[in-house]
């Protein structure tokens, strides 16, 4: 089945070749970072995590959001997702790989990364995050691959896959919860020290992930002639709308607690992000853009459902994706660290090599996703033409 990943139309091959450029640039920048140290990034002794860790956090959400198609399809027999569920599972695979790569490039001593296994520390949330992420990667790869292989052969999936599928549902919630625990268990970091962090992570993930899936489906329809089915997209749209509403509600709750209680440790980080603190206002336009786009996306999502407009849907989902990316991929980490333990405010901006390394990682994720989706599309088109028996390897 894997040989299907390397067969594609000219345009598709060109797309893969184009992805190699940012991957190469990112690799070159990483070699420089490997040589010189993390000094080439914008991080420092106060903002100790930056773009890499933020992308990791955002992408864990994208990975977890596969549950939004897996659970309805397998638990509630939502047939609308029949053509989407495998796309969601493989998106999760690519997203987890991106997470792992982003953590890897953030390490100061990458050659010692196996110390996490050689000297395991079960008291560390990072240890458990590694466990749940690698487990989730294996689960989705095994489930997706097995179901697809059965579909190709016109057979029913074997019985042992069912328990794995059921396991993957709470596991998806688990990966983002454990990722939230990385942050919300730290004393003295007011923005993160909230029990609402995991629910907030999940709500924004269940908005951004399915929104990305909708955008991918629309792109596949336009560029690859693969129709995921309007019913599935409409159902996903409803998911995105509810998740975004919950996300906005949770943000409002954070605002109330922080500003009504007036406790400096809780208030000042939100104040830094949304209003500026001690003259540091770098994040303010970003955060209000994010909040505005979040708020605007909900009526647009509803409008796309009412008017059955794919164009409005594409715009709405783009707004969701961009707004949640700003919130998690820019604001969350820099905002949580900007006010140092010694009460000084430090702005953070990623450097060019830092961004290029991350772009290179994203491009390698797109490459993996393209290869996986080629297999899916080729199996599907065989099935659609009723010629499964005349597959490539006969």
């Amino acid at each position, binding site marked *: 089945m894997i040989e299907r990943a390397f067969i594609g139309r000219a345009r598709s091959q060109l797309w893969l070749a184009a992805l190699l450029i940012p991957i190469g640039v990112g690799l070159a920048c990483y070699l420089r970072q490997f040589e010189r140290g993390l000094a080439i990034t914008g991080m420092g002794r106060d903002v100790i995590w930056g773009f890499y860790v933020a992308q990791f956090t955002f992408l864990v959400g994208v990975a977890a959001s596969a549950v939004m198609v897996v659970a309805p399809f397998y638990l509630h027999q939502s047939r609308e997702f029949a053509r989407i569920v495998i796309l969601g599972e493989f998106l999760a695979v690519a997203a987890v790989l991106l997470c792992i790569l982003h953590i890897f490039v953030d390490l100061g001593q*990458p050659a010692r990364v196996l110390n996490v296994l050689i000297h395991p520390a079960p008291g560390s949330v990072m240890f458990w995050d590694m466990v749940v992420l690698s487990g989730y990667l294996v689960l989705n790869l095994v489930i997706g691959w097995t179901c697809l292989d059965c579909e190709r052969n016109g057979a029913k999936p074997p019985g042992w896959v069912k328990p794995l599928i059921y396991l993957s549902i709470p596991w998806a919630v688990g990966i983002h919860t454990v990722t939230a625990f990385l942050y919300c268990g730290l004393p003295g970091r007011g923005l993160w020290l909230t029990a609402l962090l995991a629910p907030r992570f999940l709500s924004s993930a269940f908005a951004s992930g399915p929104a990305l899936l909708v955008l991918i489906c629309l792109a596949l329809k336009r560029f690859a002639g693969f129709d995921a089915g309007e019913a599935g997209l409409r159902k996903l749209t409803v998911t995105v709308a509810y998740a975004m509403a919950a996300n906005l509600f949770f943000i409002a709750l954070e605002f109330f607690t922080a500003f009504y209680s007036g406790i*400096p440790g809780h208030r000042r980080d939100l104040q830094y992000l949304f209003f500026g603190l001690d003259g540091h206002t770098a994040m303010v336009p970003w955060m209000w853009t994010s909040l505005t786009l979040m708020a605007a996306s909900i009526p647009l999502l509803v409008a796309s459902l009412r008017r059955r407009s794919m164009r409005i849907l594409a715009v709405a989902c783009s707004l969701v994706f961009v707004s949640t990316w700003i919130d998690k991929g820019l604001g969350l980490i820099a905002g949580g660290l900007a006010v140092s333990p010694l009460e000084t405010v430090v702005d953070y901006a990623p450097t060019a090599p830092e961004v290029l390394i991350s772009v290179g990682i994203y491009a390698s994720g797109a490459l993996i996703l393209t290869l996986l989706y080629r297999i899916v599309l080729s199996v599907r088109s065989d099935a659609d033409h009723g010629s499964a028996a005349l597959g490539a390897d006969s």
Partner: protein
Amino acid sequence: MLKLSLLAAAGLARTRPLFASLASVRPEDVLEPGAALKAGRWAMVIDVRKCLAATDCPDDCARACRSEHNVPEIGDTRHEVKWLWREPGEHLFPGELDQFRGGELSRRRLPALCNHCANPPCTRVCPTGATFSRPDGIVVMDPHRCIGCRFCMAACPYGSRSFNWEDPRPHLKAVNPDYPTRTKGVVEKCTFCDERLAKGRPPACVEACKYKAMSFGDLKDAKSPVAALLRDNYSIRRKPELGTQPAVYYVI
């Protein structure tokens, strides 16, 4: 030859010695008796009254610490490495200092260092055990094991940990050959001078302060100087509400 090549091929040549470290403590690991300073719980008391009185303090504590441990002086504040340094009181005790006494405590720079907490968040989050608490309360850093994830720095509510964003060696003006430097990509911090304690000497900062503002001793020994100071004076600790139980006390 073949064995080595095999190990190289598997990429294990570097990690193999680490497995050897799992060997248990053997009888020959006995300490040199007599020489080392031992305690049930090491603690430091900083007499802020003496710091305030010393209006011409030459920063000897921080200087001694830097030269003793080869702490680099990096110009870029973002990449600074700090073990012991002086910081305005309002930064050490945000929102806690009496504002009706002229604000002197808030303005004046007082020593800041690792608090060697009894309940340290940094060791809790470390994914490799590279930082851990010794039975005598010292929070140590094993730079050989550190993977540079900086989780401990996110967890430390005192900003007492530093990361080597670049190779520190070019930033050393003089080198103390009796203490190693660090390499890029690892975290470092104050160790209460564990290497000096093992040789029967007090921490470098304590020894260097000519105003005798810093005291060091065993909290569990009622006769130790720190126990006496804390018994007879009012002392505060940094961010006690976080439950970290610092071992560095400030007498005010």
